[in-house]
């Protein structure tokens, strides 16, 4: 296998982008990544997108996006793994470069979610769960994560305030990110007084519905060095799956797919969790971040709530989690999220994260998750 480097990153401002179509938001981010890399010719492209069919009634993104990027007849692939589609696209791009099949690969992620009503978006997102045995009973994604929260609170004594502190921390970080959908701060009281969505989760425990895209350019590390670019290598890549239905899991307060994907990625990189300087993880709901910090081994089982309370995962803490603002504040255009996590980690490792820069960051980790943990993708990045 060849060493793989990220030589270009691109992301535009996320939000409710009513004036822009799916193709436009994708091409804007892709062009930023290509310009950043200083390349024009690509050998292949991989795009992560969860559900352009349900959100905008458009499939066949391989043709649409390569066409509007002006790259026909480049080979292109679209990958789908619910909210971890972006992370999976990165993994497929990584495999393509590492294997020697292609040299320069553009990896993108995109989701255009505001062309449908809130109800329709809730339905589209719900297709990441078991439609016949979860959705059929009136469950929603906030509902599924709420049940994980109740299980975690019951088993470990995690408190409602600790959940709120995840939102407070990520909005603090997001307030320093000009590309975030919601770059403002929230308070614990504000979270606790926000409207209930699925008890005990309130609207400020949930990531928003977002239009957005992100892109990175990958190439062999040797080629990157010759181009005299700041080289950030992808040194670890792990993926794992689990049951589609939450009810089938052995432990409702534990995300096994993230645990396995994390172990695989760290082992490939030859690193331990303590070697990592920053984390971008899938905080689709506040409880998710708490459970992910446990699954990755940042803290012991059941200690995720306490860790936020003690500031361990804040920007100046020992293990900063979601310096970008996370899905919570930055936004969550589902197919783009996994790629945007890579964009943030590369920014941090290049020292380009301005106000939210983690000093001397050399190694970062991304964790992207589909459904309630039915799939997880983890990558480890290292600066030269």
């Amino acid at each position, binding site marked *: 296998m060849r060493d793989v480097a990220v030589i270009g990153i691109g992301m535009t401002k996320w939000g409710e982008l009513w004036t822009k179509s799916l193709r436009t938001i994708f091409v804007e981010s892709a062009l930023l990544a290509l310009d950043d890399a200083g390349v024009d010719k690509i050998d292949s492209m991989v795009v992560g997108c969860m559900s352009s069919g349900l959100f905008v009634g458009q499939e066949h993104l391989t043709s649409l996006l390569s066409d509007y990027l002006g790259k026909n007849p480049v080979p292109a692939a679209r990958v789908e793994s619910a909210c971890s589609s972006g992370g999976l696209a990165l993994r497929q791009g990584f495999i393509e470069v590492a294997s020697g099949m292609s040299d320069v690969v553009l990896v993108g992620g995109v989701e255009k979610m505001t062309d449908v009503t809130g*109800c*329709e978006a*809730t*339905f589209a997102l*719900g297709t990441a769960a078991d439609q*016949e*045995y*979860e*959705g*059929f*009973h*009136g*469950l*929603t994604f*906030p*509902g599924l994560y*709420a*049940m*994980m929260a*109740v*299980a975690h609170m*019951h088993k470990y004594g995690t408190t409602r305030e600790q959940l709120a502190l995840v939102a407070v921390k990520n909005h603090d970080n997001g307030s320093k990110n000009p590309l975030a959908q919601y770059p403002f701060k929230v308070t614990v009281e504000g979270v606790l007084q926000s*409207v*209930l*969505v*699925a*008890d*005990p*989760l309130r609207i400020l425990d949930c990531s928003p519905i977002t239009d957005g895209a992100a892109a990175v350019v990958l190439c062999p590390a040797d080629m990157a060095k010759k181009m005299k670019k700041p080289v950030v290598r992808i040194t670890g890549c792990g993926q794992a799956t689990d*049951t589609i*239905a*939450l*009810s*089938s899991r052995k432990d*409702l307060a534990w995300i096994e797919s993230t645990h396995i994907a994390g172990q695989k990625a760290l082992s490939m990189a030859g690193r331990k969790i303590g070697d990592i300087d920053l984390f971008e993880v899938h905080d689709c709901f506040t409880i998710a971040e708490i459970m992910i910090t446990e699954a990755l081994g940042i803290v012991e089982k059941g200690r995720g709530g306490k860790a936020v309370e003690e500031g361990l995962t804040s920007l100046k803490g020992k293990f900063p989690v979601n310096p970008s603002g996370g899905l919570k504040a930055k936004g969550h255009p589902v197919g783009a999220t996994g790629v945007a996590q890579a964009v943030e980690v590369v920014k941090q490792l290049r020292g380009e994260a301005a106000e939210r820069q983690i000093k001397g960051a050399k190694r970062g980790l991304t964790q992207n998750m589909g459904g309630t943990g039915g799939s997880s993708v983890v990558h480890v990045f290292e600066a030269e």
Partner: protein
Amino acid sequence: MPNPARAWREYPQRYRLEAEKCTKCGYIAFPPRLVCPQCGNRKFAKTKLAESGKLLTFTIIRVPPEPFEDQAPYAVGIAELADGVKLTAQVVDCDFAGLKVGMPVRLEFRKLYEEGEAGVIYYGYKFVPE
């Protein structure tokens, strides 16, 4: 889901709680599967789910998906039945404030929702506190 075939395909499970038991390791598959996730065996014998169990977790849905709009707020939970099978269903005939992890529940046959005025009327099981 405007297709009756999709609904009646699930009737054995939703109406009669039919499950399948692995002939090798005893794993109970609900809904039925072709491969046992525990031992890889491909042979199963028909069985019926236990009708009572205890609540493992729950939530109250305040923002419902479209077909359930007229029902919110409603409770949904995951229960572990006496035979070890875990499944998801609404929790009904209960006071939200009285819901607790570990509380005993039984399965009852109920109406879930209907697909407009001329569509399929969906029935299935729900949890009722004992």
